[in-house]
Protein backbone atom coordinates (compact mmCIF):
# COMPACT_ATOMS: atom_id res chain seq x y z
CA UNK A 1 0.00 0.00 0.00
CA UNK A 2 1.40 3.43 -0.92
CA UNK A 3 1.88 6.10 1.76
CA UNK A 4 -0.87 8.19 0.11
CA UNK A 5 -3.32 5.27 0.39
CA UNK A 6 -2.33 4.67 4.01
CA UNK A 7 -2.86 8.32 4.89
CA UNK A 8 -6.20 8.43 3.02
CA UNK A 9 -7.32 5.38 5.03
CA UNK A 10 -6.17 7.07 8.22
CA UNK A 11 -8.11 10.23 7.33
CA UNK A 12 -11.22 8.15 6.60
CA UNK A 13 -10.75 6.36 9.93
CA UNK A 14 -10.50 9.73 11.66
CA UNK A 15 -13.97 10.58 10.27
CA UNK A 16 -15.61 7.20 10.82
CA UNK A 17 -14.04 6.00 14.09
CA UNK A 18 -13.05 9.07 16.08
CA UNK A 19 -15.60 10.72 18.35
CA UNK A 20 -15.01 14.02 16.57
CA UNK A 21 -15.70 12.57 13.10
CA UNK A 22 -18.75 10.66 14.25
CA UNK A 23 -20.11 13.83 15.87
CA UNK A 24 -19.78 15.69 12.57
CA UNK A 25 -21.56 12.92 10.64
CA UNK A 26 -24.25 12.83 13.30
CA UNK A 27 -24.73 16.58 13.00
CA UNK A 28 -25.03 16.24 9.21
CA UNK A 29 -27.66 13.51 9.62
CA UNK A 30 -29.53 15.58 12.20
CA UNK A 31 -29.68 18.58 9.85
CA UNK A 32 -30.83 16.43 6.91
CA UNK A 33 -33.38 14.66 9.13
CA UNK A 34 -34.85 17.96 10.31
CA UNK A 35 -35.15 19.27 6.77
CA UNK A 36 -36.66 16.01 5.52
CA UNK A 37 -39.16 16.00 8.37
CA UNK A 38 -40.15 19.54 7.47
CA UNK A 39 -40.63 18.71 3.80
CA UNK A 40 -42.72 15.60 4.36
CA UNK A 41 -44.37 16.50 7.67
CA UNK A 42 -45.37 20.15 7.26
CA UNK A 43 -48.81 20.49 5.71
CA UNK A 44 -47.85 23.44 3.54
CA UNK A 45 -44.42 22.17 2.47
CA UNK A 46 -45.82 18.74 1.64
CA UNK A 47 -47.88 20.43 -1.07
CA UNK A 48 -44.71 21.48 -2.90
CA UNK A 49 -44.07 19.94 -6.26
CA UNK A 50 -41.91 16.77 -6.03
CA UNK A 51 -39.34 18.26 -8.40
CA UNK A 52 -39.02 21.36 -6.20
CA UNK A 53 -38.57 19.25 -3.07
CA UNK A 54 -35.84 17.07 -4.65
CA UNK A 55 -34.09 20.17 -6.00
CA UNK A 56 -34.13 21.84 -2.56
CA UNK A 57 -32.88 18.67 -0.89
CA UNK A 58 -30.04 18.28 -3.43
CA UNK A 59 -29.00 21.89 -2.78
CA UNK A 60 -29.09 21.39 0.95
CA UNK A 61 -27.01 18.20 0.72
CA UNK A 62 -24.44 20.02 -1.42
CA UNK A 63 -24.17 22.96 1.01
CA UNK A 64 -24.01 20.80 4.15
CA UNK A 65 -21.50 18.40 2.58
CA UNK A 66 -19.40 21.40 1.50
CA UNK A 67 -19.42 22.62 5.09
CA UNK A 68 -18.39 19.22 6.41
CA UNK A 69 -15.70 18.85 3.73
CA UNK A 70 -14.38 22.28 4.71
CA UNK A 71 -14.16 21.19 8.36
CA UNK A 72 -12.51 17.88 7.42
CA UNK A 73 -9.95 19.74 5.28
CA UNK A 74 -9.12 22.18 8.07
CA UNK A 75 -8.89 19.36 10.60
CA UNK A 76 -6.52 17.39 8.35
CA UNK A 77 -3.99 20.23 8.42
CA UNK A 78 -4.50 22.92 11.09
CA UNK A 79 -6.34 20.50 13.39
CA UNK A 80 -3.55 17.92 13.21
CA UNK A 81 -0.96 20.64 13.71
CA UNK A 82 -2.71 21.88 16.85
CA UNK A 83 -3.05 18.35 18.22
CA UNK A 84 0.67 17.78 17.57
CA UNK A 85 0.16 14.83 15.24
CA UNK A 86 1.24 16.58 12.03
CA UNK A 87 5.00 16.71 12.72
CA UNK A 88 5.42 12.91 12.91
CA UNK A 89 3.62 12.68 9.54
CA UNK A 90 5.86 15.34 7.99
CA UNK A 91 8.89 13.33 9.16
CA UNK A 92 8.06 10.13 7.26
CA UNK A 93 10.38 9.32 4.36
CA UNK A 94 7.81 10.31 1.73
CA UNK A 95 7.45 13.41 -0.47
CA UNK A 96 5.15 16.06 0.91
CA UNK A 97 2.86 15.74 -2.09
CA UNK A 98 2.21 12.09 -1.32
CA UNK A 99 1.11 13.12 2.18
CA UNK A 100 -1.10 15.81 0.67
CA UNK A 101 -2.50 13.32 -1.85
CA UNK A 102 -3.45 11.02 1.03
CA UNK A 103 -5.19 13.84 2.83
CA UNK A 104 -7.04 14.88 -0.34
CA UNK A 105 -8.05 11.23 -0.72
CA UNK A 106 -9.38 11.40 2.83
CA UNK A 107 -11.64 14.30 1.84
CA UNK A 108 -12.88 12.31 -1.18
CA UNK A 109 -13.67 9.34 1.09
CA UNK A 110 -15.45 11.68 3.51
CA UNK A 111 -17.58 13.01 0.61
CA UNK A 112 -18.42 9.48 -0.53
CA UNK A 113 -19.54 8.67 3.04
CA UNK A 114 -21.65 11.84 3.17
CA UNK A 115 -23.13 11.14 -0.28
CA UNK A 116 -24.11 7.60 0.73
CA UNK A 117 -25.63 8.94 3.94
CA UNK A 118 -27.67 11.52 2.01
CA UNK A 119 -29.24 9.07 -0.44
CA UNK A 120 -31.90 7.83 2.03
CA UNK A 121 -32.90 11.44 2.66
CA UNK A 122 -33.26 12.12 -1.07
CA UNK A 123 -35.26 8.91 -1.32
CA UNK A 124 -37.48 9.97 1.60
CA UNK A 125 -38.50 13.19 -0.14
CA UNK A 126 -38.32 12.08 -3.78
CA UNK A 127 -39.48 8.48 -3.93
CA UNK A 128 -43.07 9.44 -4.69
CA UNK A 129 -42.13 11.22 -7.93
CA UNK A 130 -39.99 10.80 -11.03
CA UNK A 131 -37.08 12.99 -9.92
CA UNK A 132 -35.12 10.81 -7.47
CA UNK A 133 -32.64 9.34 -9.98
CA UNK A 134 -31.97 12.75 -11.48
CA UNK A 135 -31.41 14.23 -8.03
CA UNK A 136 -28.93 11.52 -7.04
CA UNK A 137 -27.10 11.77 -10.37
CA UNK A 138 -26.87 15.55 -10.19
CA UNK A 139 -25.51 15.55 -6.66
CA UNK A 140 -22.93 12.94 -7.71
CA UNK A 141 -21.87 14.67 -10.93
CA UNK A 142 -22.19 18.38 -10.17
CA UNK A 143 -22.02 18.27 -6.37
CA UNK A 144 -18.73 16.38 -6.19
CA UNK A 145 -16.45 19.14 -7.58
CA UNK A 146 -18.14 21.76 -5.37
CA UNK A 147 -17.83 19.69 -2.19
CA UNK A 148 -14.21 18.82 -2.98
CA UNK A 149 -13.48 22.50 -3.72
CA UNK A 150 -14.51 23.41 -0.18
CA UNK A 151 -12.61 20.44 1.27
CA UNK A 152 -9.43 21.47 -0.56
CA UNK A 153 -10.06 25.09 0.46
CA UNK A 154 -10.08 23.88 4.07
CA UNK A 155 -6.72 22.19 3.52
CA UNK A 156 -5.24 25.29 1.88
CA UNK A 157 -6.45 27.50 4.73
CA UNK A 158 -5.24 24.98 7.32
CA UNK A 159 -1.77 25.01 5.79
CA UNK A 160 -1.62 28.79 5.48
CA UNK A 161 -3.18 30.06 8.65
CA UNK A 162 -1.81 29.66 12.17
CA UNK A 163 -4.92 28.44 13.98
CA UNK A 164 -7.77 26.05 13.19
CA UNK A 165 -10.27 28.54 14.58
CA UNK A 166 -9.11 31.29 12.22
CA UNK A 167 -9.27 28.81 9.32
CA UNK A 168 -12.79 27.78 10.28
CA UNK A 169 -13.97 31.39 10.46
CA UNK A 170 -12.44 32.23 7.08
CA UNK A 171 -13.79 29.08 5.48
CA UNK A 172 -17.28 29.66 6.88
CA UNK A 173 -17.27 33.20 5.52
CA UNK A 174 -16.22 31.88 2.09
CA UNK A 175 -19.01 29.29 2.21
CA UNK A 176 -21.58 31.86 3.38
CA UNK A 177 -20.59 34.24 0.58
CA UNK A 178 -20.82 31.40 -1.94
CA UNK A 179 -24.23 30.38 -0.64
CA UNK A 180 -25.56 33.95 -0.42
CA UNK A 181 -27.23 33.93 -3.89
CA UNK A 182 -29.36 31.08 -2.59
CA UNK A 183 -30.72 33.16 0.25
CA UNK A 184 -30.82 36.67 -1.22
CA UNK A 185 -33.88 37.61 -3.19
CA UNK A 186 -34.34 37.13 -6.96
CA UNK A 187 -34.24 40.88 -7.60
CA UNK A 188 -30.69 41.10 -6.23
CA UNK A 189 -29.68 38.09 -8.29
CA UNK A 190 -31.01 39.84 -11.41
CA UNK A 191 -28.84 42.92 -10.83
CA UNK A 192 -25.56 43.28 -12.74
CA UNK A 193 -23.45 42.43 -9.69
CA UNK A 194 -25.73 39.54 -8.81
CA UNK A 195 -25.40 38.12 -12.34
CA UNK A 196 -21.60 38.42 -12.33
CA UNK A 197 -21.45 36.81 -8.90
CA UNK A 198 -23.74 34.00 -10.05
CA UNK A 199 -21.59 33.46 -13.12
CA UNK A 200 -18.37 32.93 -11.16
CA UNK A 201 -19.80 31.25 -8.08
CA UNK A 202 -19.47 27.46 -8.26
CA UNK A 203 -22.11 26.80 -5.63
CA UNK A 204 -24.82 28.92 -7.27
CA UNK A 205 -23.81 27.51 -10.67
CA UNK A 206 -24.40 24.00 -9.34
CA UNK A 207 -27.70 24.85 -7.66
CA UNK A 208 -28.87 26.62 -10.84
CA UNK A 209 -28.02 23.45 -12.74
CA UNK A 210 -30.06 21.36 -10.26
CA UNK A 211 -32.93 23.77 -10.87
CA UNK A 212 -32.61 23.63 -14.64
CA UNK A 213 -32.53 19.82 -14.81
CA UNK A 214 -34.96 18.80 -12.07
CA UNK A 215 -37.54 21.59 -12.29
CA UNK A 216 -37.22 22.85 -15.87
CA UNK A 217 -36.57 19.39 -17.32
CA UNK A 218 -33.45 20.39 -19.29
CA UNK A 219 -30.90 17.65 -20.11
CA UNK A 220 -27.99 17.11 -17.71
CA UNK A 221 -25.52 17.33 -20.60
CA UNK A 222 -26.60 20.92 -21.19
CA UNK A 223 -25.28 21.87 -17.75
CA UNK A 224 -21.65 21.57 -18.79
CA UNK A 225 -20.91 25.28 -18.13
CA UNK A 226 -21.76 24.77 -14.43
CA UNK A 227 -19.54 21.69 -14.31
CA UNK A 228 -16.67 23.49 -16.04
CA UNK A 229 -16.97 26.38 -13.58
CA UNK A 230 -16.92 24.00 -10.61
CA UNK A 231 -13.94 22.11 -12.05
CA UNK A 232 -12.09 25.38 -12.68
CA UNK A 233 -12.57 26.38 -9.03
CA UNK A 234 -11.52 22.91 -7.95
CA UNK A 235 -8.28 23.23 -9.95
CA UNK A 236 -7.55 26.71 -8.51
CA UNK A 237 -8.17 25.64 -4.92
CA UNK A 238 -6.19 22.40 -5.40
CA UNK A 239 -3.20 24.38 -6.72
CA UNK A 240 -3.46 26.66 -3.68
CA UNK A 241 -3.60 23.67 -1.33
CA UNK A 242 -0.53 22.11 -2.98
CA UNK A 243 1.43 25.39 -2.74
CA UNK A 244 0.41 25.95 0.88
CA UNK A 245 1.17 22.38 1.95
CA UNK A 246 4.60 22.52 0.27
CA UNK A 247 5.41 25.58 2.36
CA UNK A 248 3.95 24.16 5.56
CA UNK A 249 6.68 24.36 8.18
CA UNK A 250 5.60 22.71 11.43
Amino acid at each position, binding site marked *: *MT*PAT*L*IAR*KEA*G*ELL*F*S*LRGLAWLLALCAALSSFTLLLVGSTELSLLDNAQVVCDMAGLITVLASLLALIVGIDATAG*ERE*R*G*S*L*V*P*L*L*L*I*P*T*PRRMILLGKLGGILIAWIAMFLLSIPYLWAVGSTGQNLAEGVALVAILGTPVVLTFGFLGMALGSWMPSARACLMTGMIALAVSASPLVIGPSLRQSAIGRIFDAINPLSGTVNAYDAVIIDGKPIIAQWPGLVLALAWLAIVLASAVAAFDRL*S*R
Partner: protein
Amino acid sequence: MDLLDVNNLAVRIADKPILTDVSLSVSAGEIVGLLGPNGAGKSTTIAAMLGLLPRQQGTVAVLGQDPARAPFTIYRNIGVLPEQNGLYDWMSGEDYLAFFAALHGLSPESAMIAARLGAVGLSPRRGQRIGTYSRGMRQRLGLARALIGAPRLLVLDEPTNGLDPRGRHEVHALLRDLAAQGTGILMCTHLLDDVERLCRRVVVIADGRTRAEGTIPDLVARSEGASRYRLRLAAPPPSLAAVRGVGRIRQEGETWMIELEPGAAAETVWPELFGRGWKIVEIRDEGRGLESFYLSLTGLPERKAA
Protein backbone atom coordinates in the same frame (compact mmCIF):
# COMPACT_ATOMS: atom_id res chain seq x y z
CA MET B 1 31.79 11.35 11.82
CA ASP B 2 29.15 13.15 13.90
CA LEU B 3 25.60 11.94 13.40
CA LEU B 4 24.40 15.50 13.87
CA ASP B 5 26.43 18.60 13.21
CA VAL B 6 24.84 22.04 13.45
CA ASN B 7 26.98 25.13 12.93
CA ASN B 8 26.03 28.80 13.35
CA LEU B 9 22.37 28.11 12.73
CA ALA B 10 20.16 31.19 12.36
CA VAL B 11 16.38 31.12 11.90
CA ARG B 12 13.92 33.97 11.49
CA ILE B 13 10.18 33.50 11.82
CA ALA B 14 7.94 36.29 10.54
CA ASP B 15 11.04 38.49 10.26
CA LYS B 16 11.83 38.01 13.93
CA PRO B 17 15.19 36.41 14.75
CA ILE B 18 14.49 33.29 16.82
CA LEU B 19 17.90 31.68 16.50
CA THR B 20 21.00 33.77 15.85
CA ASP B 21 23.93 31.42 16.35
CA VAL B 22 23.33 27.84 17.45
CA SER B 23 25.95 25.13 17.15
CA LEU B 24 25.83 21.59 18.49
CA SER B 25 26.86 18.08 17.58
CA VAL B 26 25.99 14.50 18.50
CA SER B 27 28.25 11.52 17.89
CA ALA B 28 27.35 7.84 17.67
CA GLY B 29 26.66 6.29 21.06
CA GLU B 30 26.46 9.67 22.77
CA ILE B 31 23.55 11.21 24.68
CA VAL B 32 23.67 14.99 24.47
CA GLY B 33 21.42 17.19 26.59
CA LEU B 34 19.95 20.30 24.99
CA LEU B 35 19.08 22.76 27.73
CA GLY B 36 17.67 26.26 27.82
CA PRO B 37 14.95 28.36 29.42
CA ASN B 38 11.46 28.55 27.92
CA GLY B 39 11.55 30.46 24.66
CA ALA B 40 15.30 29.99 24.27
CA GLY B 41 14.83 28.35 20.87
CA LYS B 42 15.29 24.64 21.63
CA SER B 43 12.22 23.44 19.74
CA THR B 44 12.98 25.85 16.88
CA THR B 45 16.50 24.42 16.72
CA ILE B 46 15.09 20.92 16.46
CA ALA B 47 12.55 21.95 13.78
CA ALA B 48 15.23 23.74 11.75
CA MET B 49 17.73 20.90 11.95
CA LEU B 50 15.03 18.46 10.78
CA GLY B 51 14.23 20.67 7.78
CA LEU B 52 10.79 21.64 9.08
CA LEU B 53 11.78 25.32 9.19
CA PRO B 54 13.91 27.18 6.67
CA ARG B 55 17.21 28.51 7.98
CA GLN B 56 18.71 31.84 7.08
CA GLN B 57 22.29 31.00 7.96
CA GLY B 58 24.53 28.17 9.05
CA THR B 59 24.98 24.54 8.13
CA VAL B 60 23.13 21.45 9.29
CA ALA B 61 24.33 17.91 8.61
CA VAL B 62 22.17 15.04 9.85
CA LEU B 63 23.88 11.71 9.18
CA GLY B 64 26.19 13.66 6.89
CA GLN B 65 23.37 15.10 4.75
CA ASP B 66 21.61 18.43 4.57
CA PRO B 67 17.93 17.94 5.56
CA ALA B 68 16.91 20.62 3.06
CA ARG B 69 18.38 18.54 0.22
CA ALA B 70 18.00 14.90 1.25
CA PRO B 71 15.17 14.77 3.77
CA PHE B 72 13.95 11.24 3.01
CA THR B 73 17.34 9.57 3.52
CA ILE B 74 17.53 11.36 6.85
CA TYR B 75 13.93 10.66 7.92
CA ARG B 76 14.44 6.96 7.19
CA ASN B 77 17.32 6.82 9.68
CA ILE B 78 16.27 9.07 12.52
CA GLY B 79 13.59 8.91 15.19
CA VAL B 80 11.90 11.99 16.56
CA LEU B 81 9.75 12.57 19.60
CA PRO B 82 8.39 16.11 19.21
CA GLU B 83 7.53 18.38 22.11
CA GLN B 84 3.80 18.10 21.39
CA ASN B 85 3.28 14.39 20.94
CA GLY B 86 -0.12 14.10 19.23
CA LEU B 87 -1.51 10.61 18.63
CA TYR B 88 -4.62 9.19 16.97
CA ASP B 89 -6.91 8.44 19.89
CA TRP B 90 -9.19 6.13 17.92
CA MET B 91 -6.38 3.73 16.99
CA SER B 92 -4.90 1.06 19.26
CA GLY B 93 -1.25 1.45 20.25
CA GLU B 94 -0.31 -1.50 18.09
CA ASP B 95 -2.22 -0.19 15.04
CA TYR B 96 -0.64 3.21 15.50
CA LEU B 97 2.87 1.79 15.35
CA ALA B 98 1.90 -0.47 12.43
CA PHE B 99 0.61 2.62 10.59
CA PHE B 100 3.91 4.48 11.00
CA ALA B 101 5.90 1.33 10.22
CA ALA B 102 3.96 1.01 6.96
CA LEU B 103 4.69 4.66 6.16
CA HIS B 104 8.37 3.77 6.60
CA GLY B 105 7.85 0.84 4.21
CA LEU B 106 8.12 -1.75 6.99
CA SER B 107 5.83 -4.60 7.97
CA PRO B 108 4.88 -4.87 11.67
CA GLU B 109 7.26 -7.85 11.95
CA SER B 110 10.25 -6.15 10.34
CA ALA B 111 9.59 -3.01 12.37
CA MET B 112 9.63 -5.22 15.48
CA ILE B 113 6.51 -3.51 16.79
CA ALA B 114 5.95 -6.08 19.52
CA ALA B 115 9.53 -5.57 20.73
CA ARG B 116 9.18 -1.76 20.59
CA LEU B 117 5.98 -1.91 22.63
CA GLY B 118 7.70 -4.20 25.10
CA ALA B 119 10.70 -1.88 25.35
CA VAL B 120 8.50 1.02 26.44
CA GLY B 121 6.34 -1.15 28.72
CA LEU B 122 3.14 -1.00 26.66
CA SER B 123 2.75 -4.66 25.71
CA PRO B 124 -0.19 -5.29 28.07
CA ARG B 125 -2.13 -2.30 26.63
CA ARG B 126 -1.14 -2.72 22.99
CA GLY B 127 -4.66 -3.54 21.77
CA GLN B 128 -6.44 -0.76 23.64
CA ARG B 129 -7.51 2.54 22.14
CA ILE B 130 -4.92 5.30 22.58
CA GLY B 131 -7.72 7.51 23.89
CA THR B 132 -7.72 5.40 27.06
CA TYR B 133 -3.96 5.84 27.64
CA SER B 134 -2.58 8.00 30.43
CA ARG B 135 -0.25 10.88 29.65
CA GLY B 136 2.79 8.80 30.51
CA MET B 137 1.61 5.93 28.30
CA ARG B 138 1.10 8.33 25.41
CA GLN B 139 4.64 9.57 25.90
CA ARG B 140 5.92 5.98 25.87
CA LEU B 141 4.01 5.28 22.66
CA GLY B 142 5.55 8.38 21.08
CA LEU B 143 8.96 7.05 22.07
CA ALA B 144 8.13 3.65 20.57
CA ARG B 145 7.15 5.41 17.33
CA ALA B 146 10.50 7.21 17.32
CA LEU B 147 12.23 3.82 17.51
CA ILE B 148 10.60 2.49 14.32
CA GLY B 149 13.18 1.64 11.68
CA ALA B 150 16.07 1.27 14.17
CA PRO B 151 17.17 4.90 13.87
CA ARG B 152 20.83 5.85 14.12
CA LEU B 153 19.96 9.21 15.63
CA LEU B 154 17.17 9.99 18.09
CA VAL B 155 15.92 13.52 18.66
CA LEU B 156 13.79 13.57 21.79
CA ASP B 157 11.98 16.64 23.08
CA GLU B 158 11.11 16.14 26.77
CA PRO B 159 11.12 12.31 26.57
CA THR B 160 10.30 11.76 30.24
CA ASN B 161 7.52 14.33 30.33
CA GLY B 162 4.52 12.94 32.23
CA LEU B 163 6.23 9.71 33.30
CA ASP B 164 6.08 8.39 36.84
CA PRO B 165 9.40 7.59 38.63
CA ARG B 166 9.35 3.98 37.47
CA GLY B 167 8.56 5.05 33.92
CA ARG B 168 11.41 7.55 34.00
CA HIS B 169 13.77 4.87 35.26
CA GLU B 170 12.71 2.50 32.47
CA VAL B 171 13.10 5.17 29.81
CA HIS B 172 16.53 6.07 31.18
CA ALA B 173 17.54 2.40 30.97
CA LEU B 174 16.19 2.17 27.40
CA LEU B 175 18.09 5.28 26.28
CA ARG B 176 21.30 4.03 27.88
CA ASP B 177 20.88 0.69 26.08
CA LEU B 178 20.29 2.44 22.76
CA ALA B 179 23.34 4.63 23.26
CA ALA B 180 25.40 1.57 24.16
CA GLN B 181 24.33 0.06 20.83
CA GLY B 182 25.67 3.13 18.99
CA THR B 183 22.56 5.29 18.65
CA GLY B 184 23.24 9.01 19.02
CA ILE B 185 20.63 10.80 21.13
CA LEU B 186 19.87 14.50 21.37
CA MET B 187 17.64 15.03 24.38
CA CYS B 188 15.92 18.33 24.95
CA THR B 189 14.62 18.64 28.50
CA HIS B 190 14.04 20.89 31.47
CA LEU B 191 14.77 18.07 33.91
CA LEU B 192 18.39 18.57 34.92
CA ASP B 193 18.24 15.37 36.91
CA ASP B 194 17.61 13.46 33.67
CA VAL B 195 20.53 15.23 32.06
CA GLU B 196 22.88 14.49 34.95
CA ARG B 197 21.88 10.83 34.90
CA LEU B 198 22.03 10.27 31.15
CA CYS B 199 24.07 12.80 29.26
CA ARG B 200 27.77 12.90 28.65
CA ARG B 201 27.68 16.32 27.07
CA VAL B 202 25.38 19.30 27.41
CA VAL B 203 24.55 22.20 25.11
CA VAL B 204 22.89 25.23 26.68
CA ILE B 205 20.89 27.58 24.45
CA ALA B 206 19.62 30.96 25.59
CA ASP B 207 18.35 33.95 23.62
CA GLY B 208 18.65 32.02 20.38
CA ARG B 209 22.34 31.15 20.62
CA THR B 210 24.57 28.49 22.11
CA ARG B 211 25.77 29.77 25.47
CA ALA B 212 27.78 26.76 26.61
CA GLU B 213 28.77 23.33 25.40
CA GLY B 214 30.85 20.63 27.06
CA THR B 215 30.84 17.65 29.38
CA ILE B 216 28.96 18.09 32.64
CA PRO B 217 32.07 17.94 34.88
CA ASP B 218 33.79 20.52 32.66
CA LEU B 219 30.83 22.87 32.72
CA VAL B 220 30.35 22.57 36.47
CA ALA B 221 34.07 23.14 37.03
CA ARG B 222 33.88 26.24 34.83
CA SER B 223 30.89 27.57 36.69
CA GLU B 224 30.95 30.13 39.40
CA GLY B 225 27.88 28.60 40.93
CA ALA B 226 27.29 28.65 44.65
CA SER B 227 27.64 25.70 47.00
CA ARG B 228 24.36 23.86 47.43
CA TYR B 229 23.00 21.98 50.41
CA ARG B 230 19.84 19.98 50.90
CA LEU B 231 18.15 20.37 54.27
CA ARG B 232 15.51 18.14 55.76
CA LEU B 233 13.69 19.68 58.69
CA ALA B 234 11.13 18.21 61.06
CA ALA B 235 8.82 21.18 60.43
CA PRO B 236 8.79 23.98 57.84
CA PRO B 237 11.12 26.79 58.98
CA PRO B 238 9.50 30.22 59.46
CA SER B 239 12.08 31.97 57.28
CA LEU B 240 15.20 30.38 55.88
CA ALA B 241 15.86 33.55 53.95
CA ALA B 242 16.57 35.39 57.17
CA VAL B 243 19.65 33.26 57.79
CA ARG B 244 22.76 35.25 56.93
CA GLY B 245 24.74 33.73 54.04
CA VAL B 246 21.78 31.85 52.55
CA GLY B 247 21.03 32.86 48.96
CA ARG B 248 18.64 31.04 46.68
CA ILE B 249 16.12 28.70 48.33
CA ARG B 250 13.88 26.15 46.73
CA GLN B 251 11.45 23.82 48.46
CA GLU B 252 11.32 20.30 47.04
CA GLY B 253 8.67 18.34 48.89
CA GLU B 254 9.80 18.05 52.49
CA THR B 255 13.33 19.22 51.79
CA TRP B 256 14.81 22.64 51.12
CA MET B 257 17.60 23.17 48.62
CA ILE B 258 19.66 26.17 49.65
CA GLU B 259 22.53 27.90 47.92
CA LEU B 260 25.03 29.93 49.88
CA GLU B 261 25.60 33.51 48.85
CA PRO B 262 28.84 34.18 47.00
CA GLY B 263 31.64 34.41 49.52
CA ALA B 264 29.61 32.88 52.32
CA ALA B 265 31.30 29.97 54.08
CA ALA B 266 29.35 27.01 55.38
CA GLU B 267 31.21 27.28 58.67
CA THR B 268 29.63 30.67 59.31
CA VAL B 269 26.15 29.71 58.08
CA TRP B 270 25.64 26.52 60.06
CA PRO B 271 26.01 28.00 63.57
CA GLU B 272 23.36 30.58 62.75
CA LEU B 273 21.10 27.93 61.27
CA PHE B 274 21.41 25.66 64.30
CA GLY B 275 21.02 28.66 66.60
CA ARG B 276 17.47 29.17 65.33
CA GLY B 277 16.30 26.12 67.23
CA TRP B 278 14.80 24.41 64.15
CA LYS B 279 14.90 20.63 64.27
CA ILE B 280 17.25 19.76 61.40
CA VAL B 281 17.00 16.10 60.43
CA GLU B 282 19.59 16.04 57.65
CA ILE B 283 22.03 18.28 55.79
CA ARG B 284 23.49 16.96 52.55
CA ASP B 285 26.23 18.64 50.52
CA GLU B 286 25.01 18.75 46.89
CA GLY B 287 28.13 20.53 45.64
CA ARG B 288 28.17 22.94 42.73
CA GLY B 289 25.92 21.03 40.34
CA LEU B 290 24.64 21.44 36.84
CA GLU B 291 21.67 23.38 38.17
CA SER B 292 23.87 26.10 39.65
CA PHE B 293 25.80 26.32 36.43
CA TYR B 294 22.62 26.42 34.38
CA LEU B 295 21.01 29.12 36.53
CA SER B 296 24.10 31.28 36.54
CA LEU B 297 24.47 30.92 32.78
CA THR B 298 20.89 31.60 31.82
CA GLY B 299 20.76 34.61 34.09
CA LEU B 300 17.66 33.74 36.06
CA PRO B 301 16.98 36.31 38.75
CA GLU B 302 17.96 35.48 42.31
CA ARG B 303 14.83 34.62 44.25
CA LYS B 304 14.36 34.34 47.94
CA ALA B 305 11.64 32.16 49.34
CA ALA B 306 10.47 30.46 52.53
